């Protein structure tokens, strides 16, 4: 087909399917306004932005805000807090759904399996506000049952788990595991459903016990899924969500609980330092995006599985 013919065909298709462009219009509008609009607004990270002057009237200041952020003592504290939470979440939160999926996959009896799935998926539907409310009720020093139980076991019984900085990361990570492990196992369950049963039969005849079969048959089948999930997790290594951290923060744990995203929120929307906080947010997003690209490339080379 020549170039002219191709163009003619394209035009014919566009004309015939014009209605489909209308179908796309609302979504495109949304993406342009609320996704690409803010990306255009990222320029204020390099400006001394004021609302009255707008994007075009504000003066350019180059990398001033970035330098200010890197030189401030806060930078290292924020980076350390963010990395602590995300790496701890990764190390604990990544393998547990896989183990859960392998366990669920070996449950005999449809009803029993369904019951276990229903229960373990359930916390996913609890809102962040309620989750944090539950934590603070259970772990309250004056009225929470955890402290009461600990005092029976010989503990002091008045530990302020939500206030003591040394407990913060544990509370954050393990409550996250509690909420999301079940839901996270679904994707591995789906992959496990694709395991060829004849492989298991053959291995059984060769004398492999169940544990060996899981290691040598089930696990290799879900490796591509594991890699994809791992890439996604690595891409958000600095992306500790503000929603839960923000709700768990208080004056006593703020030294360890302030992460980059909550700092951006306070700096920007409470203190109204628009340019500075946009610069901090942009630094965060740029690192995340770069990490994602690098990890994805590496995964593609090593294992052949990748996001794109």
């Amino acid at each position: 087909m020549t170039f002219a013919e191709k163009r003619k065909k394209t035009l014919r298709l566009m004309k015939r399917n014009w209605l489909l462009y209308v179908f796309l219009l609302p979504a495109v509008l949304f993406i342009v306004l609320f996704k690409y609009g803010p990306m255009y607004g990222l320029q204020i990270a390099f400006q001394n932005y004021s609302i009255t002057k707008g994007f075009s009237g504000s003066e350019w200041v180059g990398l001033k805000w970035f330098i200010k952020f890197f030189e401030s003592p806060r930078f290292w504290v924020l980076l350390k807090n963010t990395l602590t939470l995300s790496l701890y979440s990764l190390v604990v939160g990544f393998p547990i759904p896989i183990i859960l999926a392998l366990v669920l996959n070996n449950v005999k009896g449809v009803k029993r399996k369904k019951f276990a799935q229903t229960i373990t998926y359930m916390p996913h539907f609890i809102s962040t506000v309620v989750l944090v409310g539950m934590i603070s009720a259970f772990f309250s020093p004056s009225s929470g049952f955890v402290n009461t139980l600990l005092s029976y076991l010989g503990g002091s019984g008045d530990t302020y788990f939500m206030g003591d900085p040394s407990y913060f990361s544990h509370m954050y990570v393990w409550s996250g595991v509690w909420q999301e492990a079940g839901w996270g196992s679904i994707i591995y369950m789906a992959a496990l459903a694709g395991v060829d049963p004849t492989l298991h039969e053959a291995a059984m005849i060769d004398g492999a016990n169940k544990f060996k079969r899981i290691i040598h048959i089930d696990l290799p089948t879900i490796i591509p899924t594991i890699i994809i999930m791992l890439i996604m997790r690595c891409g958000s290594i600095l992306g500790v969500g503000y929603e839960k951290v923000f709700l768990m923060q208080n004056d006593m744990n703020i030294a360890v609980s302030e992460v980059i995203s909550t700092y951006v929120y306070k700096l920007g929307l409470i203190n109204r330092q628009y340019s500075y906080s946009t610069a901090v947010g942009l630094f965060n997003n740029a690192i995340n995006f770069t990490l994602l690209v690098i990890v994805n490339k590496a995964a593609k080379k090593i294992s052949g599985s990748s996001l794109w």
Partner: protein
Amino acid sequence: MENGMMSVKRAQKIRQRHTWDDILFEVITKLLLIFFVVIVAYPIYFIIVASFSDPVYANNGSILLFPKGFTLMGYERVFEDERIWIGYLNTIIYTVSGTALGTAVVLLAGYAFSRKDLPGSGILMKLFIFTMYFSGGMIPLFLVVNEMGLVNTRWSVILLGCVSVYNIIIVRSFMANTISDELMDAATIDGCGNGMFFFKIVLPLSKAVIAVMVLYIAVSYWNGYFNAMIFLTDTDKYPLQLFLRQILLMATQSGSDLNLIQQDPELADQLATSAQLVKYGMIVIATAPIICLYPFVQKYFVKGVMIGSVKG
């Protein structure tokens, strides 16, 4: 024949040898499963039991399995609080309108993207997907919404939560796999245009994915608080989750409370414990609709994850 007999016998022998390994394995997986289920279920169960119990027992650890000192006081107090009613009403408004709008936009876009004969849709999809991995961030978004005059309007909450690229991808994958080219060709020959084909044939065949979308979007509206916290200033527009945040997490001791503790520590203690009971009741009231509905529609949620996990 003899050979076959031999191998069956050998297999039996091997199976016997490994029976003990497998029994051990069975025991370990069973224990693990029970452990997972109990750990997940117990906190939820405790909240429900505690919300019906005398707060004194809930706090001193003497109710672990069954309600004690049955009372409905917590719920009475919850329903007396008018913030709960305002919040519930607002959340229903946001959830219903946002879900209707979001589902419509996502279905239309997902269908258009599922068609292979639409010039330009490939590059457009890439531009959509890019926004999943890179965003302008919180402050520029706030400024854009402010510029549009949407700050402190209900539209800010409704519009910002309604479209997600991930949902569009789920719809696209589903429709690309369900609606065959032959079906499309047959309909075209019968004189069926794109619009009629979508509404008369595609939608009726897509009931499962419509259910997935409605549920996903509705849950995200029901549980979300952050957009509302950023964009709303009037409390009469607050969704339930923001009021919950006030009641569950921001109830700090005020000056009068401190006075009371000095004058009458016993009464202050009672007030604190009954406040705890109200919290348990509130958690149940706010979460019950979703948790009760969810087991019946679980298969749709799971289906959504399955479709979304198919690459491409």
